[in-house]
């Protein structure tokens, strides 16, 4: 897991596949693959066109270039939220100074010098005064955002295309290759820099003493200090590097868009940090990966592209960006230790015992299951199953029969990939939590000696039949008549109640009578909630 040469797996005798699977970047690779598949699935012709792919890679430029610096900085245990504002300020300086007639070489040198001083300053404040980097950079983020407004005078500044400076073109212009000459007609030079800095960053992090020292600084600052490493210097240099890269990225962006406005770079810091972490860099320092950061940036660029291709409305765009970020982290973390055995060991086998030998299963739970980790996996797998079932059935029926489906925020299409799991998890969590609270209140009143965890264990396993929830959800979504929906709900609720009774009896070591009472009380509480909700909604309807 935590090797020093972070991107090479420990046992070099392994095949390429297993090496890949053990590498730090596996999560980001998987996420990219998933997104790639999704993109090809949605609109292969457009998505896979050379121009589009080039566009996607160009779209990584800002995130990746700043991300390389951030990777080094995070490896050494700090981070910097001001990069988005800094990049805007640098672009604004270039644009306004160029507008006033200064020679471009002078401007670029000046801006880079400014960025270096800025990084030095931030580094000094954080290392020498011991200020927390999170807060200092919240401050500088705000300060520089204001400075950007001042520099631009509240306006958008542009670089005129008829007087476009050569140097700026090299930093981020777009090369016109002439139509039909190559697969792509226009090649953004930012791509070259993105890859160049990737190689450079990889070299620095993994092949130089400085990279190792950054890792030690982030890994165990105290120990690193004791071996004579000047950890403060390492951090300051990294603050300077990330500032320089942000300045460079800002100039590249200016060259590409030929404009910089007061809102340029807003929110970039969060995307950069998210990319770096998705790429496998440890948020708390010590380990990181440059290729991972590039892949993380690619995840974001792909997300943007796919969301546009999917033709989502303007409002869902952001919801999905959020879902994709979470999904990417999930993939990144799960890829490290997700095993197929979870399905069999933690789901199927409990399910089997539950249905064939209920009582002894709960006795086993009482004796052998510690905490709620195992039950939670059980619940999660169950929820995933019914979400997937809903998704598939909904899509198939929509395609073949054309029945319209609509349930809360779910409707067929690409967006369902996000909304269905969301709804499924929220619904299940709500059901489980309320039931557990009601039941625990009841058993408490009846004098149990067990704690909430035990009740929760019982409730989670008892809700095993909830895996069939896709049936009523689909029925509602297709607007079937109410009796049918209610019928299906009852069919699911009945076995759950039976299991609740059994689990309460066994887990809380209750008599049958008390167990019945507890479950009865739970039902009453549920009914109260139901009636309350119904009357409240009735007021409107």
């Amino acid at each position: 897991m935590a090797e020093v040469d972070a991107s090479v797996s420990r046992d070099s005798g392994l095949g390429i596949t297993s090496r890949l699977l053990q590498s730090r970047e596996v999560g980001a690779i998987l996420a990219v693959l998933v997104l790639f598949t999704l993109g090809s699935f949605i609109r292969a012709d457009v998505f896979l066109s050379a121009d589009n792919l080039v566009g996607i890679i160009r779209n990584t430029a800002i995130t990746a270039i700043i991300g390389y610096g951030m990777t080094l900085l995070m490896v050494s245990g700090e981070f910097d939220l001001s990069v988005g504002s800094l990049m805007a300020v640098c672009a604004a300086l270039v644009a306004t100074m160029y507008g006033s007639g200064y020679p471009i070489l002078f401007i670029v040198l000046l801006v880079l010098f400014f960025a270096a001083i800025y990084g030095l300053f931030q580094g000094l404040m954080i290392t020498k005064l011991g200020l927390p980097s999170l807060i200092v950079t919240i401050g500088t983020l705000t300060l520089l955002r204001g400075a950007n407004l001042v520099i631009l005078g509240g306006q958008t500044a542009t670089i005129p295309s008829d007087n476009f400076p050569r140097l700026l073109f090299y930093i981020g212009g777009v090369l016109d290759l002439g139509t039909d000459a190559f697969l792509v007609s226009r090649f953004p030079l930012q791509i070259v820099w993105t890859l160049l800095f990737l190689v450079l960053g990889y070299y620095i992090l993994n092949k130089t003493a400085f990279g190792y020292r950054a890792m030690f600084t982030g890994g165990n600052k105290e120990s690193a200090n004791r071996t004579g490493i000047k950890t403060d210097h390492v951090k300051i240099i990294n603050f300077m590097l990330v500032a320089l890269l942000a300045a460079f990225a800002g100039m590249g962006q200016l060259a590409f868009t030929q404009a910089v406005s007061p809102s340029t770079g807003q929110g970039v810091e969060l995307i950069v940090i998210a990319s770096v972490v998705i790429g496998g860099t440890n948020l708390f320092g010590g380990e990181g990966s440059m290729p991972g950061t590039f892949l993380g940036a690619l995840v974001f660029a792909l997300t943007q592209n796919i969301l546009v291709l999917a033709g989502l409305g303007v409002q869902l765009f952001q919801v999905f960006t959020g879902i994709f970020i979470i999904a990417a982290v999930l993939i990144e973390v799960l890829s490290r230790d997700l095993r197929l055995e979870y399905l069999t060991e933690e789901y199927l086998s409990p399910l089997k015992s539950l249905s064939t030998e209920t009582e002894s299963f709960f006795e086993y739970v009482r004796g052998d299951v510690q905490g709620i980790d195992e039950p939670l996996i059980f619940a999660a797998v169950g929820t995933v199953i019914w979400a997937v079932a809903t998704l598939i059935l909904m899509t198939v029926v929509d395609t073949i029969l054309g029945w319209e489906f609509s349930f809360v925020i779910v409707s067929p299409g690409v967006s369902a990939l996000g909304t269905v799991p969301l709804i499924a998890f929220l619904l299940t969590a709500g059901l489980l939590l309320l039931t557990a609270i009601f039941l625990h209140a009841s058993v408490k009143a009846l004098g149990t000696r067990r704690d909430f965890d035990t009740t929760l264990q019982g409730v989670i396993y008892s809700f095993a039949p909830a895996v069939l929830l896709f049936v009523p959800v689909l029925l509602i979504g297709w607007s079937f008549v109410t009796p049918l929906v209610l019928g299906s709900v009852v069919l699911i609720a009945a076995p759950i109640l039976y299991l609740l009774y059994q689990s309460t009896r066994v887990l809380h070591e209750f008599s049958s009578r008390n167990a019945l009472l507890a479950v009865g009380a739970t039902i009453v509480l549920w009914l109260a909630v139901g009636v309350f909700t119904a009357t409240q909604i009735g007021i409107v309807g």
Partner: protein
Amino acid sequence: MSKADESTVTSDLSAATEQPADDDTILSVRNVSKHYGGVVALEDVSLSIKENEVLSIVGDNGAGKSTFIKLLSGVIPATSGEFYMRDPESHDLEQIVLESPAMAKRAGIETVFQDMSLSFQHDVAANVFMGREPLKDGLSGKLFRRLDREYMEQRSIEALDEIGFEIDPNAITEELSGGQQQAIAVARALISDPRVVILDEPTAEVSVEGSQKILDLIEELQASGKTVIFITHNLQEVFDVADRVAVLRSGSLVAELENDGTIDREELVGHMTGAIQQE
């Protein structure tokens, strides 16, 4: 085991500054104090370490042993006091400043800390060479010098082998046993061929067999001309390898004993606990 001829107990050492350094002194500590805020961890300690000896420092918990070591290794600066070290060329005792680990290293002092000071998420080779990463010529000669990873791995295997351990240089330190981790810390201290090696409870984590290996190692170090400062709570180990024993109590140096086979265990414990008071 004992090499000295005389047994002397120097109880009052406050005059140490005046007395001219012995010819065989390699490191001299004069009137050193260390205060942590209001806590006095060391008070006016003066001590000379002789070239090529094994000096053992003993004392009760909290006596100030680790603090003394940290001063010598430059981890924390002394509140007051001076350090002198014999220059290898001119053979004069020269004052040195020990205010950063780098200074101590430059002076040829290497330390194995009580907490081992390893970066646990990194691998063995990286830890062995931490702060002293070997470079080789890189992309364009001297300009982009890069790490010599092969050398690091190969050399750490050797270094660990020399102290009797066989550990994969690519293994993650976190996943090793306490003894193996201690071995890495020792290997790190030895890799730069120091003149003075300080070991703060190096046997605390290792097995009986492992302890014996470390004791053997101390003798080997001495044989190869190094000076060793050795801290332990195991008095038997002290009797086994030390040439001299210094006793710290509540931050003060209360006794210096020559280990000529005549040290009485009771007496030593008495110095440590304060049962034997200074005159």
